[in-house]
């Protein structure tokens, strides 16, 4: 690729940062050209980000309907799944799944809530409710 042809389409998911791309300069040497990104990249990243945001919104609806605990919302809001939340909090996966329901969540002790809060990077007060 020639340096002039490096895409500068403004991939919004880069948040204004530029990424390094290798291209040929006028002398035929390979150099790094900062790029604002491709449209295709943006579509793909956005798909992944949107899928995670949808999961968080679905969890929020379930919490409001009384079908899930705020922990489920926070798990998705932090882009985690049960496996990662289990590893981060130190609970077994089957216990995490139980705590995702309102009844299991209600039975958590203060120190257990603290472990989840620490894993998710929120305070225990925030963890008890939706933001």
């Amino acid at each position, binding site marked *: 690729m020639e340096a002039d042809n490096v895409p500068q389409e403004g991939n919004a998911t880069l948040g204004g*940062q*530029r990424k390094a791309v290798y291209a040929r300069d006028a002398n035929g040497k390979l150099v*790094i050209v*900062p790029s604002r990104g491709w449209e295709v990249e943006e579509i793909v*990243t956005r798909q992944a980000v949107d899928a995670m945001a949808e999961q968080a919104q679905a969890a929020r609806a379930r919490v409001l309907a009384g079908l899930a605990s705020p922990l489920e919302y926070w798990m998705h809001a932090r882009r*985690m799944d049960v496996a*990662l939340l289990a590893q*981060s909090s130190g609970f077994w996966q089957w216990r995490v799944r139980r705590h995702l329901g309102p009844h299991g969540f209600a039975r958590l002790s203060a120190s257990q809530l603290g472990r989840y809060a620490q894993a998710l990077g929120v305070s225990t007060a925030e963890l008890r409710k939706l933001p």
Partner: protein
Amino acid sequence: MNFDHRHAAHCESGVVANLLRHHGLEMSESLAFGLASALSFAYLPFIKVSGQPVVAYRALPRAIIRGMKAPLDAHFRFESFRSEAAGQARLDALLAEGRVVGLQTSVYWLPYFPPDMRFHFNVHNLLVYGKDGDDYLISDPVFEHPVRCASADLARARFAKGVLAPKGLLYYPQRIERQSVQPAAVRQAIARNCRHMLAPVPIAGVRGMRFLASRLERLPAGAGHVRRPAD
């Protein structure tokens, strides 16, 4: 400390090149990547990460750092830690000695990353070259300019859990015996890379690319192939 930060396309190759340049070697990202024969390809349809089959296009984590051993006789020391406190104390001690230290971190917990890029990806590499108050001075090669990160955030990123958890891993060169790259080392690296890319298995190297391409061609048109990540 004056640190010569250079923008790079990938984290590990960029970290290695910037770190070696700091130690007086003329090293570019592409040369580091090539010397380690790090170019590779593997399509692993039977391993799924968030519902997607794995496509690997580079060698395993740390392969580029280790790949400097043969061509440069460069010996790196790797240390990982059980506790955040121990990891941070060791990092501070090394910085106080005037060293530039490489770290393995999660991307998700680094606040300077754009929000849309913050996934739970645990094998990001960056260099720490100093500390200013509570902020670490960081040369993250995939960023154009050096960045800063508060100590609590960096500790969280270093001790993130999950697949390929970094466990606070830090690394630095202990000694580098050769100060220049010999042409023979480059030829050897290219030959090794050719061997990898021509491996006689259908899922790796050039054959792996053809295999994945044929799978892609057979996908249904439109959005029919979009799969949601598993809960």
